């Protein structure tokens, strides 16, 4: 099925995307003819049980992985026709990333980490924008510290700032609260929410966590590589209901108790 865009021009479009792993008996359809529009200026969550293909979908949209067939457009650029160099440039200029495990460069200070994408592109930071990002991140006097001197929540906020600073078309966040306690997680989610509300940033987040999903404008659900459902302006309870429906009662209950770390109630 195709999920319709909710508002305005989409920041990215996915058309008939299919990706398989393995072969024969062990063939796994990670993505099975997925089509989807990711609305500009929206905060979208991609949800689904383990192995549903949500991470693969995000990696394909973010020019980190390639599909077997179908296409992904970021703006009007078709990723399936681009080579490594162009993809690298696309990642550098159009896409921002937030990873579950922060992935900061340990030798650089927080500030240097934030400015790294601009430095790589040899672009000067826009002062006002930089100041407002820094202000939003709220690190204050800890900007000169190395990552190992910061808490997990602080590190992840640095990572969010790094993703925002180059004003990318889309920011992708892969389980950004997965390694955080609930308070730090909420701070990070609030940061993402504000970037959408105050600056019109497009954010796409992959998550297990119904609490995290409740911060978004729209949730799309994947199961077995297919789009199975979606919610607009979701609440935690609505998300849990859909999760229970798409992944069967056992898996749904597993979601309710919260898998992994840091998905406690907020």
């Amino acid at each position: 099925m195709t999920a319709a865009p909710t508002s305005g021009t989409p920041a990215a479009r996915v058309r008939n995307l299919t990706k398989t792993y393995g072969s024969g008996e062990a063939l796994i359809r990670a993505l099975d003819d997925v089509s989807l529009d990711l609305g500009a200026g929206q905060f979208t969550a991609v949800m689904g049980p383990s192995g549903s293909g949500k991470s693969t979908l995000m990696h394909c949209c973010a020019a980190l992985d390639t599909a077997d067939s179908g296409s992904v457009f970021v703006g009007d650029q078709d990723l399936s026709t681009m080579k490594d160099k162009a993809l690298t440039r696309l990642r550098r200029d159009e896409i921002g990333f937030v990873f579950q495990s922060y992935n900061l460069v340990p030798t650089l200070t927080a500030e240097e980490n934030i400015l790294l994408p601009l430095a790589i592109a040899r672009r000067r930071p826009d002062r006002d924008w930089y100041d407002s990002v820094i202000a939003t991140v709220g690190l204050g006097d800890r900007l000169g510290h190395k990552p190992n001197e910061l808490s997990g929540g602080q590190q992840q906020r640095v990572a969010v700032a790094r993703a925002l600073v180059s004003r990318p078309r889309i920011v992708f966040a892969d389980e950004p609260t997965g390694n955080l306690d609930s308070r730090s997680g909420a701070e990070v989610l609030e940061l993402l929410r504000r970037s959408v509300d105050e600056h019109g940033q497009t954010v796409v987040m992959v998550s297990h966590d119904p609490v995290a999903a409740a911060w978004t404008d729209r949730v799309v659900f994947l199961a077995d590589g297919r789009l199975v459902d979606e919610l607009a302006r979701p609440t935690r309870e609505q998300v849990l209901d859909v999760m229970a429906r798409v992944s069967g009662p056992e898996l749904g209950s597993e979601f309710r108790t919260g898998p992994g770390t840091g998905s406690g109630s907020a």
Partner: protein
Amino acid sequence: MIRAALKSLLGRKVRLLLSTFAIVLGVAFVAGILMFSDTLNRSFTALFASTVGDVVVRPDGGQTDLGQLSTQTLPASLAGKLRALPGAARVDGNVTALNVYVMSTDDKIIGGVGPPAIGGNWSDAPAGHGIQGLVIEEGHEPHGPDEVVLDARTAERAGYALGDTVRIVTATDRVNIESTLVGIAGFAEGGSLNGATYAAFDTATAQDLFLGGADAYTNYWITARDGTSQTELAAQARAVLPAGVEAVTGDDAAEASASGLLKGIDFLTTFLLIFAGIALVVSAFIIVNTFSILVAQRSRELALLRALGASKRQVVRSVQLEAFVIGLLASTLGLGLGVLLANGVQALVATVGLDLSGQPLVLAPRTVVAAYAVGIVVTMVAAWLPARRTGRIQPIQAMRDDIALPESSLRRRLVLGVGLVVAGGAALGAGLFGSVPHAGWWVVFGVLAILLGVTSASPVVSRPFLGLAGSVYGRLFGPMGNLAGQNSLRNPRRTTATASALMIGLTLAFTVAILGASAKASVDKQVRDNFIGDFIVSSAFGQPFSPAIAKRMAKVDGVDSILRERYGFGRYDGTDQGVAATEPRDIDAFDLTMDAGRAADLADDTVLVEAGWARDHAVGVGDTVKFQMLTGERSWTVVGIFAKNPIVFFPVLTSVDTLTGSGFPDQDNYVVIYAKPGARGVQDRLDEVVAKSPVVTVKNQQEFAAEQRDPIDRIIAIIFVLLVFAVAIAILGIVNTLALSIIERTREIGLLRAIGVSRRQLRQMIRLESVVIAFLGAVQGVVLGIGFGIALMYAVRDQGLEVISIPVGQLVLFLVLSLVVGVLAAVLPARRAARLDVLKAISAE
């Protein structure tokens, strides 16, 4: 536990391979040199066995230890007496002469350096114990004055075939010979002349050429009848021999001539093993570093083992076991590579004339044992420090995210390093300037302690350098430069340990470069200060040449006068001593500075001695000195003591007739030519005299200086080739460190790629990291090398090396090369990093 260790080892094949490389090269070096040395030994033992008969009859002391032959001969009439001996099956007279050079078809001398150029009479007599020596393989034996036989290798090198006219240059009155090649000789039972050349004529021609036409022989071989031993036969011969002639068994004669040479080979082996030792020290550095990295990367796994109940001991043991397996594997590979290397060393010594082509390599059990012992011991000793550190890993660390292996404190390393440098400096000083016994060992330990001390203190003292490099990088190369600079500072222990491995090789290279430049500058200065006359005539290898050349040159238009100098060897007070000789009437030309006596008093059976020699041997004017020469003991009166003069090649100077009378041939080593003032074109006319015997050349002051510098260049070149090994291992070390640190940083590299770093930028970053390591090693090497070089030169300043010269151009070249090395070392790791799959890298553990 053992299973876990082995599994972990096998699970990391790439890392295993990388860490074995360094030790493989070190072991290969040791094994290769031992194989080469055994091969050389066997080949010379075989060669010498084939150069003696069952019994050799020769004039007393017919040969010096250094291979010079006496001019004394045995009459042909002696043959009859020997044939009548009851134990003699046959008796053959041999004529042997040295400095008989075969010229190639394009007018080059064959051989000449190192192994002798031999001429003589053709003989098919069997060597001792019935060993068949050279036999005619093609053509026939030489007959008559115009026929010659060459050994197969010489004929091949010179490019002659049967029927060709062979050009030969001798040191006798008849300088040039042209003969027809009628036969080619080879060893029937395999064997080699090891680079010596052999030209054989029929007996009458050989006597004519080399013994002034006398019907005489250099020596006789007696072949024993079946059932007669060498000792019995020698005793029978002694009974009938006149005074001044001796009979020795072939075994003794071969042993005597081989022992001097084998002593030389031992020296060569020791010399080469020193470089193998250097290579092994560098390998050990790499192993320490590699294991430190591997253990750090595995610390979580080791902590897990601890949490599961493994004891400290077991954890440490598992790392040591890993080292053992790596050592075992590396030794095996090294042994194999050593075979290739032995061939390489053969090629290297072939450039100095020692031709061992066609000799099968000898793989003695000793070599195998040494290879395994060295490989395993070095690896395990080097892995000991990192292994011990794993014992300090706490089980709780298995649960933690950011796990760091406990490291030695930098402060302690600085203190240790400074201590070692101070102690090493003291030992070096004592060895060089003090009067301690075994000064050489003091120097070696001093140098080693300083190198280790610098390595130990390097993480601290190199910090400013790395910081500076980082900021220069940032300015020159932007963000990637900045990252590279930060990365080199991330683990200064690792960066500096890798650089130190390179430092060792380069320190020695710089030291040698400085010694070489200083030696050459000293030679230049001595030649400049002491050159007499206008031209010097000599052979390139200091070998004697025909006196006819000097006679002809004296008659050349524009030549005012000539001065001959020659030398021989005898024994004084139990040690070999060179004796120089000149014509007493020419002594003024030497312009000697006399400390005592008068130079003009030099006459037959008198000597002038150099001041230092006179002091060492407590000899004064008027004393009598006794020398053991080829013809027996000679007593000479000291008539003067002169200040050291490089034109007089030995500290004892006598008359030409005295030297000839001591059994040395009438041949010159050097001739000094004085041109008439204003004469033009003299050198061209002198060149014409020796045009057909390129063994001898005419040189003006600059050319003579250049020729004197040449052997220094050659030795330096060989040392550089040997040091290439240490440097190659160090380069592998850089590759290894980079590769391992890339594995360690996989996730970070994935992140950089994810946020838009291109492959090119990534490669640039790795390359810059590599260059900073290489450059650090080179800079440390330059500083230490200059220090050691100057210290050594200062220590030997009173041994004729009075000029200290620092070859700035060469040092700068080395520094630039180190940058190239850095770039090259980064090629593979950088490619690997650039090829990492971004997705997998990001999610890597």
